[in-house]
């Protein structure tokens, strides 16, 4: 088993990639019968916005907890700015902001009281606290709700307050576990705008999300599946690497079309899209599939592939 070699305390330590803010090196962690992490590796460069995308139970939360030094690993190691978060904890803490997925605020404290509590936890001087909290209240637009109890906030507002609390000590690296889950689309877009602002100012951000369509919003994205990295890279490059061709079916009666498609080996996936169907077919077989649909008065229109197509294609390859 690969034990972390002595304390990795500086960027000069062997095995630390210069310029990397976060490194997961073959992380393995089992909980009872569940293999939560099964050799997960990835690197996040400084100043990057990295998305860890995967379904419920894929291992996203365990990975983030390992990077925050909150759980021990069976093997492998996590590094934050070249340091082992489980060893030099205080030093790592100072440079790390964490927004956990579950409720992390005091429900019976107000917005202002929660902010003050976290400021004390980080030993923030009073003047600095006032300066930073007023800026954070401004960008999260929580100013008017200063006296509202945390448990009376909407889902989106609660997430924004949790984010503000994680930002008070100006961390160099920010970890966010499903910051947009259960948040309505308007608040979701506001959160993304805020994250892009932080990254623009030099912060490194790693976030997890179950939403495939959010992959595109990141600089780099890693797809996690059964505790392992399925694929990683720059969103556009990943989409360009998809082997399948993607189409929308126009015309025809959907159920008839669906039945016909189900019998074609070239069709890798079909899913409803509005009143029509979206399909992914083996490269070069668009013509064959189109011809098969002709008797049903249906035709194919090429559409750009999305991350769900990509994810499904990779999962299928994995199963094969």
């Amino acid at each position: 088993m690969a034990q972390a070699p002595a304390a990795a305390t500086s960027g000069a330590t062997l095995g630390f990639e210069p310029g990397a803010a976060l490194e997961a090196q073959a992380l393995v962690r089992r909980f009872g019968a569940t293999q939560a992490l099964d050799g997960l590796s990835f690197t996040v460069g400084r100043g990057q916005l990295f998305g860890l995308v995967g379904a419920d139970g894929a291992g996203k939360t365990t990975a983030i907890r390992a990077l925050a030094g909150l759980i021990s690993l069976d093997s492998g190691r996590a590094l934050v700015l070249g340091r082992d978060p489980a060893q030099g904890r205080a030093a790592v803490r100072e440079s790390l902001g964490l927004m956990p997925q579950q409720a992390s605020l005091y429900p019976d404290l107000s917005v202002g009281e929660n902010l003050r509590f976290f400021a004390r936890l980080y030993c923030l001087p009073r003047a600095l606290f006032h300066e930073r909290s007023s800026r954070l209240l401004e960008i999260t637009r929580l100013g008017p709700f200063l006296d509202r109890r945390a448990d009376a906030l909407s889902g989106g507002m609660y997430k924004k307050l949790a984010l503000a609390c994680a930002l008070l000590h100006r961390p160099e690296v920010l970890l966010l576990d499903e910051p947009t889950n259960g948040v309505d689309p308007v608040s979701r877009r506001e959160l993304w705008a805020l994250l892009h602002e932080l990254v623009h100012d030099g912060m490194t951000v790693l976030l997890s999300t179950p939403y495939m369509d959010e992959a595109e919003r990141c600089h780099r994205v890693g797809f996690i599946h059964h505790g392992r990295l399925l694929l990683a890279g720059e969103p556009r490059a990943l989409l360009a690497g998809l082997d399948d061709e993607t189409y929308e079916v126009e015309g025809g009666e959907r159920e008839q079309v669906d039945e016909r498609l189900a019998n074609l080996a070239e069709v890798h996936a079909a899913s409803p899209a509005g009143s029509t169907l979206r399909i992914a077919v083996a490269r070069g077989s668009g013509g064959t599939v189109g011809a098969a649909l002709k008797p049903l008065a249906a035709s194919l229109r090429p559409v750009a592939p999305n991350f769900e197509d990509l994810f499904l294609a990779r999962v299928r390859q994995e199963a094969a």
Partner: protein
Amino acid sequence: MSEPSIEAVHLSRRFGSFLAVDDVSFSVARGEIFGYLGANGAGKSTTIRMLCGLLAPTAGEARVAGFDVKTAPEAVKASIGYMSQKFSLYLDLPVCDNIDFFGGAYGLSGPDFAARADEVLRLCDLENEHDAITGSLPGGVRQRLALGCAILHRPAVLFLDEPTAGVDPVSRRLFWRFIRRLARDGTTIFVTTHYLDEAEYCGRIGLMVDGRLVALDTPSALKRRYVPGRVLSVHGRNLAPAAVSLRSRPGIITVEPFGAGLHLQVAAEDWNADSVAQALASAGAQAVEVESGEPTLEDVFLAVVARPREVHAP
């Protein structure tokens, strides 16, 4: 023409001084998949609770499966199925016991019920999980079981309240395949979701803002109406400063950072891919590439819900 499965007429609900649902009217045909979208607190859940016969309207009326929610709430409850994101299953029981429990709750028993239970297990692809402890199953399988339990009594109308939050895409596709099959066989589906790519599966969509139903149409008609311009996705270097200067130009509707690139919505009469590329290049961006994209329902949602305010970063 048969009677609509769901009909709401000037439906309103007040809590004290707060008008949660404000004069909402719509109808849903038998076998239709109807999506009901809105921000947190827009009135979606209050509407569902009224349609399920759980909450009396303050004004207006609604009929579900032919029964008035005010005067015949029990008949309404017997005609509907309900499934929410927090599926209420007994996790320590095997799959078959959950089916039996929910069957019993609907007053089903005997050989007819046994046959129906088998049919539902087959329909939801759960035949091999019959004896599995529910808590040991992955989220996607549990979700199908929750769906199965909600349709045991053959409801005419099925309410799905954020049914797929956090479920993986493979299971999600399978789930929607079952939903479409149910709809094709005549079950009316009423679904809420924050997952706007999923709303694409709906035949029609209603959009709620502050208790009012402000838009109602097919996904493609909503896009045509509310996102009339071009949607462009931009890649290149040094985009951020160039984007700032672009933002103030006439005909630029939104500019949004998207990964290392930008997403733009522009007026079709003022801009195209070439002119946007030129404008960005002359503002200092390099290696600019502009591709046409397609509007999403999220664009529609933002256009409708957040219309008066700016949503992008300053």
